[in-house]
């Protein structure tokens, strides 16, 4: 697959390395000559010096035959414009942008970037996961559908412990997909399943109902 990456910083570099390893054809664009030389030394001729927001540079890079276009600079406005030019001028089917300010994730989506990735939000999710007392962990966010997969732990004192799923009156757009109980095989919970302390539940929910789901399952 032909993949173009804008920005040869650490994200661009490691991404390029990983994609080359998977045998993709990769081209990195960066404005900085020194960065391009580093690529040349480390990974071969994969980096071209140029502004990834400029139509002429992108045309020379053969963007019109790229299947994926990734803008990974540390400037949000550059990432947005690079993706929009790639998409609308050159018809790249999938554009991915690194979002540095989490506030811009939604804006990027509204302005037509196929897949905006907020670095800050990713780090937050990972940190959240490491805090043992936090009852709800985000496992996966499906941005386009506004759905997410979360893990909820039934802590000591949760009012849902000892109740069956149907008694909890969960939000209608949340589905309990899996129940993990210590020492047992994971099971699919039914309406009659009784929840116990230390149960871990994998659930699919909309972003809007996440809060309600957490309250119903994990509040005391």
């Amino acid at each position, binding site marked *: 697959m032909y993949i173009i990456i804008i920005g040869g910083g650490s994200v661009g570099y490691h991404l390029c390395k990983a994609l080359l390893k998977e045998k993709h054809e990769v081209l990195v664009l960066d404005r900085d000559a020194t960065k391009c030389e580093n690529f040349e030394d480390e990974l071969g001729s994969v980096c071209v010096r140029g502004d990834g927001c400029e*139509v002429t540079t992108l045309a020379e890079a053969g963007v019109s035959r790229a299947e994926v276009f990734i803008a990974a600079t540390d400037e*949000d406005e*550059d990432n*947005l*414009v690079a993706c929009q030019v790639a998409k*609308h*001028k050159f018809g790249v089917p999938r554009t991915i942008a690194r979002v540095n300010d989490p506030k811009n994730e939604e804006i990027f989506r*509204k302005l037509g970037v196929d897949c905006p990735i907020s670095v800050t939000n990713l780090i937050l999710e990972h940190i959240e996961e490491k805090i043992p007392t936090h009852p709800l962990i985000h496992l996966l966010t499906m941005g386009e559908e506004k759905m997410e997969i979360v893990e909820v732990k039934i802590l000591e004192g949760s009012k849902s412990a000892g109740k069956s799923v149907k008694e909890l009156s969960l939000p209608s757009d949340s589905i309990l997909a899996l129940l993990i109980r210590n020492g047992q095989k994971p099971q699919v919970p039914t309406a009659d399943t009784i929840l116990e302390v230390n149960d871990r539940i994998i659930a699919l929910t909309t972003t809007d109902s996440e809060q309600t789901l957490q309250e119903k399952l994990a509040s005391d």
Partner: protein
Amino acid sequence: MKIIIMGCGRVGAQLASLLDADGHKITVLDVDAHSFRRLPPSFGGTALVGDGTDEEMLRKAGIGEADAFVAVTQGDNRNVMAAQIAKNIFNVPKVICRIYDPLRKDVYEALGLEAVSPTTVFAQLLRDKLLAT
């Protein structure tokens, strides 16, 4: 009209003072407070320090009630991003942005953004002046 101008460089400041003198309600945004020195002492509008690509900042500048938004910072991409936020997220009726790069300007015009490229305009002006007898 209530008009928000993003970027208080020479063009932004000049535009702000012209429109202010015409009696419009002007808010000028710039990331650097030092830029506001370019506004004339008679300027009666509001000058706000802040980034026009930031939704919160735009709200503070009163973009909800703005009739027009003009993006004239030094950065093409910043102008494009702010103009799109004003147009597509806040539905400001009239949005104009400056894009130095003529090719990028064409792309965004095709996308429905009203853009001006000073590069093209000035080059044409110089040509006409050179060829005028």
